[in-house]
């Protein structure tokens, strides 16, 4: 019991405590005491800002991410199924994937201004590639025996898609979706830092420009916590959806 509870908690506790005590008497303007950061955290984020900045940011992230997921899986299945299409699109996809997503922000500002649409588009255009490419790989690697079995039993169309293609590719799709999630968070913040009137990234940058140091630290803390929370949420969803797959892997290992 001691090992399972104390050991994982020991280092974080030590780290936080040392941050607390080392910074407690800090008069350095740029490195305020943890105590004032925490009180700034409560004052800053538990008020209007939740509805004004935090939730809209998250809403844009969710919308952009889901659109990217649907598009990525749809195109990925189409491309992954056809050897010719795959060969034809590969060079273009390799190039588009290699463009660092943040440089799309200035381009999309041209098309969509600096409103919500731009931010959602940025998130979609960044999240799309990992999902798309992983779906292509997953669909390509579908077990041939199962494919032949489907053909023999005349399973086609939607049923084939749902029970064979998507199911077989789902572990790969999940890998892509996990990469896309962290890219999505980064792009959500960047698009708001670059140009916006509201949102988390915008607010944090405003604090920094206005030298509201404890508030800024609290914003950094919040962004970090969001990242951790979203990755935990993803892992929960993945464990449910891909439970059969992890079970299968574990059983394989037993052998």
């Amino acid at each position: 019991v001691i090992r399972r509870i104390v050991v994982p908690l020991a280092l974080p506790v030590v780290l936080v405590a040392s941050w607390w005590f080392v910074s407690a008497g800090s008069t350095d303007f740029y490195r305020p005491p943890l105590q004032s950061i925490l009180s700034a955290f409560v004052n800053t984020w538990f008020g209007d800002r939740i509805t004004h900045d935090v939730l809209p940011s998250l809403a844009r992230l969710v919308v952009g991410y889901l659109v990217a997921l649907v598009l990525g899986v749809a195109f990925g299945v189409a491309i992954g199924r056809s050897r010719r299409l795959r060969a034809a699109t590969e060079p273009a996809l390799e190039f588009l994937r290699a463009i660092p997503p943040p440089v799309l922000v200035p381009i999309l500002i041209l098309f969509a201004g600096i409103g919500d649409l731009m931010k959602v588009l940025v998130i979609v255009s960044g999240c799309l590639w990992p999902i798309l490419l992983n779906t292509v790989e997953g669909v390509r690697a579908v077990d041939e025996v199962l494919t032949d079995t489907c053909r023999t039993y005349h399973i086609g169309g939607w049923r084939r898609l749902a029970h064979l293609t998507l199911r077989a590719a789902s572990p790969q799709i999940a890998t892509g979706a996990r990469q896309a999630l962290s890219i999505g968070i980064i792009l959500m913040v960047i698009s708001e830092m670059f140009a916006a009137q509201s949102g988390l990234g915008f607010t944090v940058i405003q604090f920094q420009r206005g030298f509201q140091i404890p508030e800024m630290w609290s914003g950094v803390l919040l962004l970090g916590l969001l990242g951790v929370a979203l990755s935990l949420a993803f892992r929960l969803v993945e464990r449910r959806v891909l439970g059969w797959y992890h079970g299968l892997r574990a059983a394989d290992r037993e052998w």
Partner: protein
Amino acid sequence: VRKYAALGLAVFLVLLEVVPRLGLVPRDYLPPLSRILVALAGEVRQGSFWVALGDTARTWAIGLAIALAAGVVLGLVIGAVPILRALTSSTIEFLRPIPSVALIPLAVLLYGNSITATLLLVVYASFWQVLVQVLHGVADIDPIASDTARSYRLSGWARVRHLMWPTALPYVVTGIRLATTVALILTITGELIIGTPGLGKEIATAQTSGAVPAMYALVLVTGVLGVLVNLGTRSFERLALAWHPSVRGEVPA
């Protein structure tokens, strides 16, 4: 297959040229490919472009080198000592998903728009990629090989050199591959948002001054950089793991 690849690339390029010319999207926003290439030719003739490219490459290389060194050394140390591993795993799991861009305001505050600010981002983001891979790699050591090493009384250093390193190397290489891409993205992001000198800053300048074709030309350059980095790491992977069964198997007998 080659034929289709060439055809697909040609279609892609023609689309980039024709779609703006037909007016399907506003030409001011997406100039035809030929105009972008003209702008690119103009950029290439200017010294400032090469300076920016050099700055980007330098930030990228320094950040990557620091992250790799720190990630590999710490990974081997933590991985080799079980108690360290147990102590740090929760902290690593917690710190890793923190988005690197959350550090941007901090970096600006502490280092202004100097190269150090961007380096902080680059090192932070790519460090985790390497560290986590190295840890996976060390955990993957074959118990029989480990016992054998113990039976032969291999010294500490020899165990690292002949047991841990070869086992972890494929993971290390994967970590390097991930880290190079991430480092490039964060380098350009830092330049774009913080304004440290480099290609990203040039893109931001071109955007604010309305030089749309030049902006696209620079974006094109970043894309080409990304492709080159991908190709480079892939051939490095093949080189470093030439002895590994997974790579050897690919060579037709």
